């Protein structure tokens, strides 16, 4: 909390330390919401610069993490809106490769989930990622995205079910194809 307090007083070295501490986590979240490395980098940059600008308004330094997550999610929403406006449907792959490539995940699974995920609304995506990737409790997610916890549950339910359904549907197609072969 000391870093936050110092940064709030205008100490840019302290804020740089905060970027070092929280940057990776924010980037991982942003990438999973946006599924695009460059837009994720833009969203993280936007969120941190906004955090620096608005930090003196943060009354309680202990809420810094929740507050930063909120800025990050809003930056991701903005990126998604811009992406839709200039939609080119070009998918950018991680330049440094996947962080933890999972050999058990087939190309078809990955493609199926990617397609199902981009059909979710930004609000459903963010709740899903904050819960299943960042591990935030639902009450904290409600605080981050600014909706009641029931809405968070409802969105999480829908998103999880949509993605699960995509896999199940895909495997049913596989089974039918295997039978026909």
């Amino acid at each position, binding site marked *: *909390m000391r870093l936050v307090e110092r940064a709030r007083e*205008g100490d*840019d070295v302290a*804020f*740089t330390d905060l970027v070092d501490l929280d*940057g990776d986590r924010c*980037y*991982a979240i942003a*990438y*999973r919401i946006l599924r695009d490395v460059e837009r*994720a*980098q833009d969203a*993280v940059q936007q969120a941190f*610069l906004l955090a*620096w*600008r*608005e*930090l*003196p*308004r943060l009354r*309680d330094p*202990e*809420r810094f993490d*929740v507050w930063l997550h909120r800025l990050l999610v809003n930056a991701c929403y903005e990126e998604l809106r811009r992406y839709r406006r200039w939609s080119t449907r070009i998918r950018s792959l991680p*330049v*440094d490769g*996947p*962080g*933890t490539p*999972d050999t*058990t*995940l087939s190309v078809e*699974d*990955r493609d199926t*989930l990617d397609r199902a995920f981009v059909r979710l*609304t930004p609000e459903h995506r963010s709740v899903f*990622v904050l819960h*299943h*990737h*960042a*591990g935030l409790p*639902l009450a904290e997610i409600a605080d981050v995205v600014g909706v*009641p*916890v*029931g*809405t968070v*549950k*409802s*969105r999480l*339910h*829908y998103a999880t*079910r*949509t*993605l*699960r*359904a995509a*896999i*199940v*549907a895909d495997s*049913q197609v596989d089974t039918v194809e295997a039978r026909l072969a």
Partner: protein
Amino acid sequence: MNTPRDPDEILSAWLDEGPARLPDQTRRAIVVALPSVTQRWRLSWVPWRFPLMTNTMRAAAGIAIVAIVGVAGLNFLRPAVGPGSAPSQTPTPTATPEPSPTQMAQPSAIAAPIPSLTETFDSANGYSIGIGASMTVEKTDAPWGLPDAFDAIVSSLYLLRVGSDVIPDGVDVDAWIQTRLTQGTPGNCGAIRAELPEVVIDGHAGKIRDSCGEIEATVVAGGRAYLFTFWMPEVPLANGREIFDAFAATVQLRPEDVLTP
């Protein structure tokens, strides 16, 4: 051929993929941009005193200071007990959880108390249901088929979503509900409605599914299909069906009371 088909395992693996480290150039770009971004509401911007103060302003400032000191003094001397002295609401420090690759894996099930459903919620969707005193209800105003087109009854451990829609004339009811379910809440966990076990809610026959960490019933009454989905988002409940049945026992289906927009 050895690809695992457990949907949650696949989801978890997919979610774990992706970059984990913020590129150095982005980190540098943030740091380099800091001097050009002015912080807002810096206290250091406020001058210690305004250079031009009239006598009236001085008098007003003096009165304000006396008033503030007086109020602060009274608050300080007042005993800090009693019904009016609520404890200060200091938010709990937020621990930042590490991304967990096993988030999708469900923890072991627990048994939750069977709720006491003493209050009634009347929905514009043409049904009423009992709810517990500590539960909240979020009514939908979205049309059926959209992600949020459900009433949500929320407790700390579970969520019950309810929605309804008119069944068009001449359709195969099972197929139509299946399609609508797939459209509105996709997946249906691979179950074919016609093959699901029977359930009766408020004297009306329907089908029920208990899989994928949720219990879902679809019931037809008065030409209207009702969907009840009971979901345990964080902790699976060993007695989830029992709790669902407790809710179902309080349901009254009243298709004639649906508010049409």
